[in-house]
């Protein structure tokens, strides 16, 4: 099957999941005790006020009508308005900047995790059971065990409090305005996020590359006297395939980490935003976040699948 057809089929298969995500984020309103009414009216709202709010928000309509109204809004880019944190501001506008910030944090963290992890993993796979391999095993388990938010605290303490480096204090990340400052702001969060996950990448890389060495086709290439660099290249190509599948998972973990790391550094990203929204019970915002993050993750899984299809002709069939 051609690559294009494969990609098309993958896209189609993502649709049911996407629909379920919309149900899930819409259903959020119903799993909470008071819902938006309680949040708006507060503890002291009179029953009459609450009834009025319900009517205004259209909460008395049948569920499917509410869902369709909401989904229609979503398609036209209208995610509703903020109620508690900044009353009246459209959510889409509020979310744009934090999303970009978190995006860059995730990218930077993933870069660190992949470069460090792949290098350590590949090195220890080439010489299994050597001191390097043992060292990498211990360090990868150690880095895996360190919570990223604690690493962030320590980095902040060492570079910000003790050495008082200016770049240690992270702030708004906006590459369109201040590139140098944005890059500086990324350094510590990226290390905190990436280093903690490099261990996982290293372990998986090592395992896969080690296994592929004993595959018959690699053996065949060896006994056919192909040069070593060609054999190693093929080992990497085939060994990287399973790593691609955990790529999405690793990026997910890093994204998860941004929530906490943003709180440590005070970086105005999605995480900080989410925690505030959760504490103030800003429902429409939470709904939107679930929808947006869910969609992003579906797209990312799709991307990994497609990448896998490009690298491995077998899955295209």
């Amino acid at each position, binding site marked *: 099957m051609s690559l294009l057809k494969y990609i098309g089929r993958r896209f189609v298969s993502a649709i*049911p999941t996407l629909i379920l995500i919309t149900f*899930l984020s819409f259903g959020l309103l119903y*799993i909470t005790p008071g819902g938006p009414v309680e949040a708006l009216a507060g503890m002291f709202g009179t029953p009459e006020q609450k009834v009025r709010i319900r009517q205004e928000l259209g909460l008395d309509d049948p569920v499917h009508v509410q869902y369709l109204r909401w989904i229609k809004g979503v398609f036209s880019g209208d995610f509703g308005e903020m109620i508690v944190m900044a009353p009246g501001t459209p959510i889409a506008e509020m979310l744009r900047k934090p999303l970009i910030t978190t995006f860059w944090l995730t990218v930077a963290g993933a870069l660190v995790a992949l470069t460090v992890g792949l290098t350590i993993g590949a090195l220890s796979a080439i010489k299994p059971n050597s001191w390097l391999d043992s060292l990498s095993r211990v360090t990868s388990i150690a880095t895996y*065990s360190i*919570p990223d938010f604690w690493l962030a605290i320590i980095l902040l303490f060492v570079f910000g409090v003790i050495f008082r480096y200016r770049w240690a204090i992270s702030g708004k990340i906006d590459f369109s305005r201040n590139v140098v400052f944005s890059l500086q702001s990324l350094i510590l969060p990226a290390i905190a996020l990436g280093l903690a996950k490099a261990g996982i990448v290293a372990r998986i890389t090592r395992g896969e590359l080690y296994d592929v060495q004993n595959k018959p086709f690699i053996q065949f290439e060896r006994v056919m006297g192909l040069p070593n660099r060609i054999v190693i290249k093929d080992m990497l190509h085939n060994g990287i395939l399973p790593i691609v599948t955990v790529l999405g998972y690793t990026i997910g973990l890093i994204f998860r980490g941004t*929530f906490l790391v943003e709180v440590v550094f005070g970086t105005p990203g999605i995480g900080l935003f989410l925690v505030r929204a959760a504490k103030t019970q800003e429902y429409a915002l939470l709904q939107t976040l679930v929808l947006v993050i869910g969609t992003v993750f579906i797209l990312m899984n799709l991307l990994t699948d497609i990448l896998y299809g490009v690298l491995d002709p077998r899955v295209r069939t």
Partner: protein
Amino acid sequence: MNKARFRILWNRFIGDKLVVLGGVIALLFLVIAVFGPQLAPFGFAQQFRAAAGELLPIDVMSTTATGERLLLGSDSLGRDMLSRLIYGTRTTLVISISSVSMATILAIFLGSLTGYFQGSLFDEIVMRLIDALLTFPGILLAVILVAAWGTQGIKIGPITTTPELTIVFALVFTFTPRLTRTMRGSTIPQAHRAYIKAAQLMGMPFWRIIAFELTPNCLTAVIIQATTYLGLAVFSTAGLGFLGLGPAEPQPELGKILARTQEYFLNRQFWHIFIPGFTISLLVFAFSVLGDGIRNVLDPEFRFEEADV
């Protein structure tokens, strides 16, 4: 499992020093969790004052105004750090272990059923649902759930939720899909193997096939994953606590203790920053090494069967 086989597996387990270390640490933490109230020198809410009378955090190994020696000092509210760490470990561990074990049991049940009845309507529905849940980073759901329920607590039947229960629920919710998928994944190839067909031909009822023939052969992967998820559960519990979504005050929790550490920046009390985080790391380290060890013991089983022919 017969004796000889158990001995081989046990020897392989204790042959790895790192794994033994992990096992010992994990055991130690379990003891701390179980006997916490007996081990802690003070209560977790008891406040002390420094010698000069101010309520600044007391440094490591120094003495309070009333003459108690606090081994690890006190937090910014003057409470004994060691006692809080012990109680905090207890909270974190109880939440982590109960959520992972509940998720695992649920996953074994769902995974073996969907795997055995692969392609049925039941399987399709469960798997689509799981696919949708899997697209989220677990913590997002946890944050939202804890935020929504945590403050007031809601009534589900006879139980009124506490923040702890909400965290457990949220973690079960996030772990079950992955574990179920793993369980289903290891069930499907087994379900197609000839020994299952042979059992069907002998007229064995399906529940017996699943319970006695199929499931015991599919547990390896899910147990390994569950062990590593213990570490992840500790991370998530501590992470929620760190975000201020943990158990209510004054109940200590490792993440909550860590969240206070930024208050020690000004006095540069390095130990105060180091110790709570290190405790979490040690806990996760013990669990992940243990998971690694169990993987090494259980995974090569197949190869070992082949080699012994």
